[in-house]
C-alpha cells in the first residue's frame, strides 16, 4: 500500500497512472452528470416561484462547491510540495489553481445569469457573492505569480507559500465578509425565499455535485499530466511519451 502511494511520486509513473485514472473519472462523471441532468431538466418539477430559470441551480451550486473545495486541495498539495519537494504535488497544485479558477468563474457567471431574472440585477455586494469574488482573486493572483517566475521549481514553491498564506486568510476573509454584510445589508434586494428543497430537485443536484467533483478530479489530473510533460520535456520518458 505504502509502496503504491510512493510510486505515485515518480513523474513517469504518475503520468501513466494519472492517464488511466483520468479516463475512469471522466467516464464516471459523465454518467453521473447525465443522470443528474435528466433528473434535473426532465423529471424535476418547475419551481413555482421562478419557473424554468431555477434549473441553472444544477450547474451553479456544484460549480460553487467545487470552487471552494479546490482551494483547500490546492493549499494541501502546495504544502506537500513545499515540505517534501514532490514534483507531482507541485504540478497538481499548479493544475489545481487553473481548474479551481475555472470553476469559480463558472459559479460567478451562472450566479450572475441567475441573478438577472430573479433579483433584477447581475450583481449585489452580498457576503456570499463577495467571498466568491475574493476567491477568484486569490486564484488569479496564484496564476499571475506562477507566470511571472521563470524557474518552474521556484515558481511552484513561491506559489505554494502564497496558497498557504491564502488558506490562513480564507476563514478570516469568509468571516469578515459575512459579518460585514449582515450588518450593512442593503434593504432593496429581493432575495430568493429559501423553501425546503424538494427531494426530486435535491437528488439530481447531489448527482450533479458528485459528477462535478469527479470531473474536477479528472480535469486536475489531465492538466497536471500536461504540466508534468512540459516540465520533464528534457527527460527520456517524456521524449518517449511524446514520440509515441
Amino acid at each position: 500500500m505504502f509502496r503504491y502511494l510512493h510510486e505515485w511520486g515518480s513523474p513517469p509513473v504518475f503520468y501513466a497512472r494519472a492517464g488511466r485514472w483520468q479516463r475512469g473519472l471522466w467516464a464516471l462523471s459523465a454518467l453521473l452528470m447525465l443522470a443528474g441532468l435528466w433528473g434535473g431538466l426532465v423529471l424535476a418539477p418547475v419551481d413555482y416561484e421562478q419557473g424554468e430559470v431555477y434549473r441553472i441551480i444544477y450547474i451553479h451550486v456544484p460549480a460553487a462547491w467545487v470552487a471552494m473545495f479546490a482551494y483547500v486541495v490546492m493549499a494541501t498539495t502546495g504544502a506537500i510540495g513545499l515540505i517534501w519537494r514532490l514534483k507531482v504535488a507541485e504540478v497538481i497544485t499548479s493544475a489545481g489553481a487553473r481548474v479551481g479558477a475555472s470553476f469559480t468563474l463558472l459559479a460567478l457567471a451562472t450566479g450572475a445569469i441567475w441573478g438577472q431574472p430573479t433579483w433584477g440585477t447581475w450583481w449585489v455586494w452580498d457576503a456570499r457573492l463577495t467571498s466568491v469574488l475574493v476567491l477568484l482573486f486569490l486564484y488569479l493572483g496564484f496564476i499571475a505569480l506562477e507566470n511571472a517566475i521563470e524557474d518552474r521549481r521556484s515558481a511552484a514553491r513561491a506559489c505554494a507559500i502564497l496558497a498557504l498564506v491564502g488558506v490562513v486568510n480564507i476563514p478570516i476573509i469568509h468571516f469578515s465578509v459575512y459579518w460585514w454584510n449582515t450588518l450593512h445589508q442593503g434593504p432593496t434586494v429581493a432575495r430568493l425565499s429559501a423553501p425546503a428543497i424538494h427531494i426530486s430537485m435535491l437528488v439530481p443536484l447531489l448527482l450533479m455535485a458528485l459528477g462535478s467533483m469527479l470531473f474536477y478530479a479528472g480535469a486536475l489530473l489531465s492538466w497536471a499530466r500536461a504540466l508534468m510533460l512540459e516540465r520533464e520535456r528534457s527527460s527520456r520518458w517524456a521524449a518517449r511519451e511524446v514520440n509515441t
Partner: protein
Amino acid sequence: MNPAVVAFVALFRRDLLLAMRRRGDMANPLIFFVMVVSIFPLALGGDPRLLAAVAPGVVWVAALLAALMSMDALFREDFADGSLEQMLLSPCPHSVLVGARVLAHWLLTGLPLVLLAPLLALLLNLPTEAMPALLLSLLLGTPVLSLVGAIGVALTVGLRRGGMLLALLMLPLYIPVLIFGAGAVEYAASGQPWTAPVLFLAAILALAVTLAPPAAAAALRVTMGE
C-alpha cells in the same frame, strides 16, 4: 522609408513583442483595475444606491490609478538596463520614439481597461444609460493619461522610489481628465446632456498628442544628463 518611421515601427513592434513574451504580465493592469473597483463596495458597505452614486467617480479613479502604476514600467526598466541611454543617442527625433512607446503602452494597458470598464460599472449598479458616456470618456481620457504620464515618468526616471514621486507629479495633471471624465458619466447617469465634458476631453487629447511627446523627450534628455 524615412529612418524616423523605421525607428518608430521598430520600437513599437519591440514593445508589443516584449508584451507577448510576458503574456502573464499583460493582464496585470487590468486585474489591478478590477480589484480597486471591487474593494470599494467592501469599504463602503455594499448599499446599492450609495454605490450607484459613487460609481462614475470610483471607476475613473481606479482607471487613473491603474494607468499611473503601469506607467512606471514605461521607461524605468529601459533606464535600468541602459536601453534608454541608447534611445537618446539615436539620430531619430526623440519625440517620435517617445510616441511609439506611448502608443504601445496605451494599446496594451489603456484599451483593455476601456473595454472592461462597462462590466465593472455594472457591478457598481451604474445605470445602463450611462454606459456610452463611460466608454467614450474613457476612450478619450485614457490616452491622455498615458501621454501625460510619459512626461512624469521621464522626469522621475532613475530616481529611487520614483514610483511614488511619479504619483505626486501626475495626480494634479490628471485632475482635469478626472473631472471631465467622471462628470460626463455622472451627467449621463442622471439623464443630463453630456456632450460638453466629452468635447473638453477630446480637446485635451488633441493638446496632449501634440505637446506631450516633445515634452517627455525634453524631460528625458534633462534627467539623463543628470
